[in-house]
């Protein structure tokens, strides 16, 4: 899922410091799973902002709403009936959701309440780590299910580099060396000879480098 983290309260206060009536919109999907922007977090943020304003002798009226998702138009429509009553919206969705909300409601200032970090997995409760960079040409079949683009700090396709130490990356002793993981997995699968296959130069045009991406499925369009 998309992993995000709440922005510092001070920064969020800065966005709405001159407002008297705001809407906080959460999302029931990814940000709920990583405890950054679900219904609970909306409630906590609302309480924190209310108290921060009270301390300054200011009033802040807050409506709390949590949508199923903010990346699909039908859920964002649910706000149409009342969004105009609010001076600003803090969206706790990932960057995609915040932008989509802003696109649907061009007249209302929208602020992000979280910093969107990466596409990743829940290693254990409270620990999430990156797994995918959306390169558009998945090579996981060749690398025993471990992605060198998202998990190698140098995205080497023919790693490891000379800085790999005791299975950890040179930049952080807590970060696994992706190529060490790949090698171990290849060993388990009895495919270590595959390591010597040269992986060719990558076509990055389907990645961010090629420009903002779009996927169209004509068979599904109305």
């Amino acid at each position: 899922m998309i992993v995000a983290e709440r922005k510092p309260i001070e920064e969020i206060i800065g966005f709405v410091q001159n407002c008297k009536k705001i809407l906080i919109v959460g999302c029931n999907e990814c940000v709920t799973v990583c405890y950054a922007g679900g219904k609970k977090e909306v409630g906590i943020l609302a309480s924190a902002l209310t108290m921060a304003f009270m301390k300054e002798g200011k009033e802040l009226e807050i409506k709390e709403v949590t949508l199923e998702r903010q990346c699909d138009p039908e859920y964002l429509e649910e706000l149409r009936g009342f969004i105009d009553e609010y001076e600003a919206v803090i969206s706790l969705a990932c960057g995609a959701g915040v932008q989509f909300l802003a696109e649907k409601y061009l007249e209302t200032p929208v602020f992000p309440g979280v910093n969107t970090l990466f596409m990743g997995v829940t290693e254990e409760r409270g620990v999430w780590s990156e797994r995918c960079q959306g390169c558009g040409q998945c090579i996981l079949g060749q690398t025993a299910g471990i992605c060198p683009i998202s998990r190698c700090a140098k995205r080497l396709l023919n790693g490891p580099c000379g800085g790999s130490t005791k299975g950890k990356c040179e930049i952080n002793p807590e970060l696994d060396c992706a190529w060490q993981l790949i090698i171990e997995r290849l060993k388990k699968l009895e495919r270590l000879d595959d390591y010597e296959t040269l992986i060719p130069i990558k076509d990055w045009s389907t990645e961010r480098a090629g420009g903002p991406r779009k996927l169209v499925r004509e068979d599904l369009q109305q």
Partner: protein
Amino acid sequence: MRLSYPVSIRIIRLPCTGKVDVIHLMEAFQKGADGVYVAGCLEGECHYLTGNLRAKKRVEYTKKLLDEIGVGGERLEMYNIAASDGPRFAEVAREMHEKIKALGPSPIREALHKKKAA
């Protein structure tokens, strides 16, 4: 045991401190509490095994949040007291009372007062 403890303490009973969530602690302060403490079983003796450990972590998180908004994380504490330990219960109550008294009223309580007066 009929031990006495300060009247400033308002008790909210739960089946386990594991039921305490961040929002409950925040709302207590929002409603004007000058201090809040969570009293759970001794570590290792939680009836539901890890409820008190979760409470401890949530208290820590909320303390930081209270610092961030300027209310003060020192107004919130976690204690571990055995259910049968009446004397310790009273002692903690007194300790917390003295601590909060020294800190003075919470800025939220003061704001609520001002609003009421206006």
